[in-house]
């Protein structure tokens, strides 16, 4: 258990460093530099500027500098606004996080509730309709559900874009995200429930005459939730991408706006900061999911490999 936790920590750290290196290299290899629109000015202005922005150094120097300052806990300043990256991200990240967490909560609620309902009874009308509805929702995607919602609501003049003060401003993006990824999860839960109902220990529990409710709670649910935990990683990763689309659609002042502005201006420290914040979130969530997996699956206890 402790060994697994330790390896997990080490590999999470490796992931963060790898992402940092890849991002810095990609930004260096990419053509164009911040401040390149200054080429009409004099040579000395350009030189000063590139010294200030750090674009006069070699790739290796930049990489070393960035890694070093990140290790020291210095995340740099925005090249455009001069603000510290931590301040900039600290202002916008809570907005995105709030949307994401609300959406995740809704998705888990919808996915597990709907999936169990559809999986436990394989013949009802509900269990036939739910997977189809889920497939359509997943295919319409966040982009579709979001733009249709936006169209309907702005048409009915019930919703103004770009605000972040009213409850509806918080609710709508989370609702759209949660609905689509809940549908995504629903299919996973449904198929894993159907599989779990056929597991030998479930059949055994039934044969011993346990009540149906007890069979479901004590035997089906833990079995069915293991594949769900495995699927949660991709769901969370997709939810993060989806949150980008939702924030742009509803003009939410979240981190996606920071990222879009930073990419347009080639504001390297901010781009790296946003990418790292997302990577850290994904890594932490994955570690948490792995831990939950271990707690839920008795086969993994005692240091065995999955």
């Amino acid at each position: 258990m402790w060994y697994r936790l330790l390896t997990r920590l080490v590999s999470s750290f490796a992931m963060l460093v790898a992402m940092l290196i890849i991002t810095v290299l990609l930004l260096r290899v990419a053509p164009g530099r911040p401040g390149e629109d200054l080429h009409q000015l004099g040579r000395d202005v350009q030189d000063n500027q590139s010294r200030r922005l750090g674009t006069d150094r070699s790739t290796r120097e930049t990489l070393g500098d960035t890694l070093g300052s990140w290790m020291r806990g210095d995340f740099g300043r925005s090249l455009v606004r001069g603000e510290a990256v931590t301040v900039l991200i600290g202002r916008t990240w809570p907005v995105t996080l709030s949307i994401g967490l609300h959406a995740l909560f809704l998705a888990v609620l919808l996915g597990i509730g709907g999936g169990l309902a559809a999986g436990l009874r394989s013949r009802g009308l509900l269990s036939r309709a739910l997977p189809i509805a889920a497939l359509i929702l997943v295919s319409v995607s966040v982009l579709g559900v979001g733009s249709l919602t936006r169209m309907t609501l702005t048409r009915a003049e019930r919703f103004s874009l770009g605000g972040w003060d009213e409850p509806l401003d918080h609710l709508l993006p989370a609702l759209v995200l949660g609905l689509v990824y809940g549908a995504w999860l629903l299919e996973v839960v449904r198929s894993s429930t159907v599989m779990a109902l056929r597991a030998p220990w479930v059949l055994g529990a039934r044969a011993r005459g346990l009540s149906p409710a007890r069979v479901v709670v004590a035997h089906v649910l833990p079995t069915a939730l293991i594949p769900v935990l495995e699927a949660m990683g991709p769901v969370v990763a997709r939810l993060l991408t989806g949150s980008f689309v939702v924030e742009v659609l509803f003009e939410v002042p979240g981190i996606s706006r920071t990222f879009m502005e930073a990419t347009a201006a080639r504001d390297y420290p901010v781009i790296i900061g946003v990418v790292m914040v997302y990577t850290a979130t994904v890594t932490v969530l994955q570690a948490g999911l792995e831990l939950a997996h271990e707690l839920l699956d008795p086969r993994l206890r005692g240091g065995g490999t999955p």
Partner: protein
Amino acid sequence: MSAPPRRRATILALLLLAPPLLLALAADGISRLVTGFGYAEIQAGQALAPPGSRSVPEAGRGWDGDASSFDALDTDRDGLLRFVPEPDGSLRSPEVDAARDRFRRCAMALAATRRTGAAVVEAAPEGCGPGPRPTPEELVEATRWMRHSSTELLEADRDGDGAISRAEYPGAPRARPMLLGADTSGRDLATRVAYGARASLLVALLATLVSLALGTLVGITAGLAGGWVDAVLMRLADLLHGLPLLFLVMVLCMATRSLVLSRPDLTIEQASLLQAGVLFLALGACQWPSVARLARGRTAALTATGFVTAARAMGLPGPVTAWRHVLPHLGPSLLSYGVLLVPGLMLEEAFLSFLGFGLQPPYPSFGLLIQEGLPVADRAPLLVVVPLAALTGATVGAHLLARSLEARHGS
């Protein structure tokens, strides 16, 4: 029905993949047949029309034979549209040219409604359209006769007297009907959706092929080699699998965009090809770890079988073993996994294009069409609904195909 199930699944998949590929290869002919527009035509003829309008006046495509607009053109009321020679020898009609100037002013007013999606032209320029506040549609109809160009009208001069009489006047330029209406630049939406489907499907299919090729290569190598090669490759795959790589795709696309912008010598076609190429390579490169896991698992199971052991005992080189004895057995599961990748990649392409990172205008893709339509969606909802419906249809189709293939192989 004597074919083995594996071959039948392959045939089914190819049959279902044929229509998008056909559309991709022959989009021009098909769209000409269905909508009456070729792509180059809608690209060149950015016409005067508010978004969503069903007909667009097009100069030089024939006349409607209705002489009623003659009086509006004939401002000096002499019953003739006179042509006078220019210094360079060409013949021009001041009356027709004045109408064209008025047309340009109307176009400015309409261009404003295109951007804002306003329902009514607030201040129609003088001499442009009936009534104080015409709707854009009325304005389009009213300005049709103003699109005459002097040189085209001169072709109607049958008696060669250098003037067009009422009898010779061929009527206003004909309006072109549009199946699904015009987009924000007066281009035919149906054609743009057909071509957008081509771009989206091609990018998704090519990205799938890239990830399948990369993943299979890594997976088989890891599975056959074993030992430290296996450990290193699979660790790498695990590492990449857990990273939000879509951000890197965004950064890469941003870089490509600025490369294209800094190279004015590239034509629009070359620039679009470059951007699409970077996009599908990057998207494919993000997906390979999951394919590699699948391929490695299957390969590891196969190495325990007799024929792979025999091939190794015979001293066959590794690549030959992989090609002849391992790859054929991976085919079906790779195929169904590949089909499963396509809808996801299509959605990712739509997301990226919608955010402005993926494919770039003027060529359409689903994401771009939705992005362009959204600001005017309350006036012209079809601009969002049609590309969305097409995207959903394609994604549902690909999902269903993937599921049926998966059910066949029981993987």
